[in-house]
């Protein structure tokens, strides 16, 4: 346990006067991209090129990374699609609203990294096999992979490293894929969806309909995004002076919300892979004590935003037990930046952002953002009634964007039955 020190803390420190610092590509560790292309030249594999149009973003040592805007193959996340479906839905919705076409495949398996990190009931060959099978499936459609989960992303970066450095692993995986009639293909860049959101953040801001200037956000960056293969992550000289990853923060700033810092920014959320499933006292204690309580005490945010399945799950689901135990009132709502950006662009909080799947109370946040959640919930309950009456019917993208029955925020008397159960 940490040694507690009780020292009174006063105000924030004055801004620094030390000037600018930039990392240079000379400081970067080995150039994996160059090695990847060398292997292609030797016929070891195919490197799937990033399609145009793409945006170039800066990574940790100043090297550019290409982020394709459209024609992307969406490598979905089981935790998102399974437990936080508004997360995946918002990612797709943002693409649709920006007019950027994509492929949502059925020919996709989970990356299986959650299982691997939790139980080790796998090995490097199987993990590489799963990754490369998914990449080959994307290649076959001609669309370029965009990865939804930060753990899938980090894991695939690891797999790429292992394949580049170990010929015997490449040979083994190539043989396995050959049996399925698939080539050994690696994408030129491994792209996380939050890198795409960062790349189009100004386009999102242009289409923003809500004023977020009064919303205070704390950002939680995912360990697996920036700590695995750390040189391949987005850094921006205008965000944290290029000293911390700019992911998510860059988007929040573009949307005009306030970013508040807190002293456990670099800490893991406590997901634990195995722990969150079978030993949740660890996950819960860690998430609440190291992240949520610190955020509340130091930053008092309206929402905390993150960009990974596990982090959203952990931070959102861990608060209930702590509240019940301690009698703490306010929770900090937890959203992905995709859901937050979608709300900013006027997305329906339930049809698109699927907030009813979230645990920590998000209603005060929606009110502060100027969203009439009672009305939106009434609409959604009507949707549910329609769906119940018609088994087999599903909500469509057109349904999700159907015009609201009442204008945003217009004073409608909510149905008393809705209020009785808190409007949910």
């Amino acid at each position, binding site marked *: *346990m*940490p*040694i507690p*020190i009780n*020292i*009174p*803390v*006063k*105000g*924030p*420190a*004055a*801004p*620094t*006067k*030390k*000037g*600018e*610092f*930039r*990392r240079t590509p000379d*400081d970067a*560790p080995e150039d994996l991209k160059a090695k990847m292309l060398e292997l292609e030249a030797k016929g070891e594999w195919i490197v799937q090129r990033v399609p145009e149009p793409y945006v170039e973003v800066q990574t940790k040592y100043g090297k550019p990374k290409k982020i394709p805007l459209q024609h992307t193959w969406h490598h979905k996340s089981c935790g998102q699609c399974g437990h936080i479906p508004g997360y995946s839905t918002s990612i797709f919705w943002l693409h649709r609203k920006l007019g950027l076409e994509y492929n949502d495949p059925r020919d996709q398996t989970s990356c299986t990294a959650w299982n691997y990190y939790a139980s080790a009931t796998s090995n490097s060959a199987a993990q590489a096999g799963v990754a490369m099978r998914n990449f080959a499936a994307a290649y076959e459609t001609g669309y370029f992979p965009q990865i939804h989960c930060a753990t899938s992303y980090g894991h695939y970066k690891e797999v790429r490293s292992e394949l580049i450095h170990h010929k015997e692993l490449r040979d083994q995986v190539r043989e396995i894929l050959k049996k399925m009639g698939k080539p050994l293909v690696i994408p030129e860049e491994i792209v996380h969806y939050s890198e795409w959101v960062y790349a189009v953040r100004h386009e999102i801001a242009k289409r923003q309909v809500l004023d977020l200037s009064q919303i205070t956000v704390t950002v939680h960056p995912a360990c697996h995004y920036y700590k695995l293969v750390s040189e391949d992550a987005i850094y921006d000289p205008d965000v*944290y*002076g290029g*000293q*911390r990853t700019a992911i998510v923060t860059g988007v929040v700033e573009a949307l005009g919300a306030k970013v508040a*810092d807190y*002293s*456990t*920014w*670099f800490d893991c959320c406590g997901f634990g892979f195995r722990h969150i499933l079978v030993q949740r006292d660890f996950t819960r204690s860690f998430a609440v004590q190291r992240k949520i309580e610190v955020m509340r005490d*130091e930053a008092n945010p309206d929402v905390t935003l993150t960009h990974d399945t596990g982090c959203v799950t952990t931070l959102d689901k861990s608060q209930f037990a702590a509240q019940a135990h301690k009698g703490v009132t306010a929770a900090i709502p937890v959203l992905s930046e995709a859901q937050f950006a979608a709300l900013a662009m006027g997305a329906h909080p339930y049809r698109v952002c699927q907030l009813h799947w979230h645990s920590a109370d998000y209603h005060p946040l929606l009110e502060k953002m100027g969203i009439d959640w009672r009305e939106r919930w009434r609409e959604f309950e009507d949707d549910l009634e329609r769906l119940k009456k018609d088994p087999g019917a599903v909500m469509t993208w057109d349904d999700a964007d159907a015009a609201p029955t009442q204008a945003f925020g217009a004073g409608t008397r909510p149905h008393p039955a809705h209020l009785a159960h808190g409007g949910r």
Partner: protein
Amino acid sequence: MPSESILIIGGGPAGLEAARGVADLGYKAILVEKRGQLGGTPISANYAALTHGMRDASEVMAEIVAAVSGNPLVDIRLNATVTGSSGAAGDFRVTLQENEGPAPVEAGAIIVATGFDHFDPGRATQQYGYYEYDDVLTLQDAEAMLKEKKFVKPSNGQVPERVCFIQCVGSRDRQIGNEYCSKVCCGIASKQAIEIRQLLPQCKVFIFYIDMRMYGYWENEIYWPAQEKYKVQYIRGVISEIVRKGDRLMIRGEDTTMNRPMEVAMDIVILSVGMEPSKGTKEIARILGLAQNKYGFIDPAHGSLDTVSTSVEGVFVAGAAAGPKDLDDTMGMAGAAAMKAAGLVRKKASVAAGRS
């Protein structure tokens, strides 16, 4: 036509001592210094007391400078850099760039004393926030304050209650690529710790380290007094991050001897940054075609047996241009370089005389 002059590039401790040595041996030294003043890093980086011995840096450097300025055998060229070179041992033709324009110089031997740069802590593997927080300093930032005998928090001018040093910043690190040890930072940090405790007896001082590198007499002259007389707290475990908590800094590490993670508030954190080859060292190595090791320092040709000869005959190196060096090393190398340079010049001259 062989020249009997010896060109010395760099006017810091190594270059100055080499120039004195060359002059004492009766040869002409041309001392080239890119700055407008002599004294090298101890002067330009405002060093307070020197490690070890605790003598005042400005005083010591003034003495060394006095030994060469006004010396008829030492031709001092300030605001001058070397831009090109040709020829070979005994007969080098070097071009200088001075204020008035380019100037040719002939020399029989060259001594490179272009020194080191301090590691930029923005490149550290760990999250030290040097560019985010005013109260995170480097060793040279602390030296400058100690020289003024005013050690306060840059953020608000208040006297600190708790100060700590973090060792090995930019050294012993495979991720950065500087796998070597910078040799002097343990001694310097301990020396500064003593100076802070002398200035501010109420201030607690901590040093977080991986190993305490206190060679030879540094152990009993610096380390033991720091602990015993000045109660500096040495804790084995390097810090992983510095974050702000209110108007204080929070540091995180593991107290490895106690086997537990720790999180402690500090007022000032001093990063013990290591040495890297200076821009001048890398530039000179390129111009003179000197072999460098993978870190960019000038590679001595024969390791421990000859610390001053380089891969090019007639070109010698002294001081931190060849790698992390303490002051003892530097002064020793400077003397050895002066001796070998003079020896070479004499041999070449006598060979030429024998022929004519």
